[in-house]
């Protein structure tokens, strides 16, 4: 490999590594968002289950 070829390879490698690192960071971010979304869905389900099991507050009725 000539020195010119080495420099060209280095330049193109730098660009591809940078794009790859960017994409890996975005992938990690999407994974984190996916985890958070699952947590929030679980939280919403728990809240719904709690509301269904708890008796609804009774309305005051007039007697007599």
């Amino acid at each position: 490999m000539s020195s010119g070829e080495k420099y060209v390879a280095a330049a193109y490698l730098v660009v591809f590594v940078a794009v790859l690192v960017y994409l890996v960071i975005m992938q990690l971010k999407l994974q984190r968002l996916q985890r958070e979304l699952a947590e929030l869905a679980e939280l919403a389900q728990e809240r719904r289950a709690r509301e269904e099991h708890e008796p609804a507050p009774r309305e005051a009725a007039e007697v007599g």
Partner: protein
Amino acid sequence: MLAATLVCAAIALIFFWVPEDADQGFSQKIFYFHVPIAVTAYACFGWGAFKAFMHLWKRPPEADLQSYVAIHLGVIFGALTLVTGSIWAKASWGVWWTWSSQQLVLFLVLFLFYSAYFMLRFSVDPGPARANVSAVYALFGLVLIPVSFLAIRLAEDFIHPTVFTPAGPQMADSMFLTFCVALAAMLALASALYRLELTGKRLDATMKRLREALE
């Protein structure tokens, strides 16, 4: 998908089709990525400044975020311009950097100016004040873009080559076609990364609101 196709096409043209430069030889192939990356960096900074202007003028809800993402990408492409340019300089001139080239120095100034944007942005609490300060700063940088772009034409710089002159591109048709494909590839790549990052940021913001509502 379009970006990936164009990048593959550009690489195929660069390494299997376009002839070697008679003067610089094989190392001239850095040109096909270096210049399109630099133009893409200018485009990102320009788009960021345009969105900043829109934020200050009409205040659409997402303009500040769009300006931030564009400048973020501009800084990434700017860093790649400096690195690939430095490698090309070493191959062609025998030095990694030269302070005597106004084109290089002005691009470095532009890069550092927009790098400082993040320091300013994150030193202000989130809210309208941060968005306004960031927008004004992004607009100031707009002045540097044409200065940096035209520096080589305004100054008598004999180190950095001038390929695009008022008489047209100073290269063979096959080289110009390859350059155009590489430029389209870089612009498509930047556009894809812009949309990806913007979607991530939007999702992040929506998730935050959802968490606040549920907790």
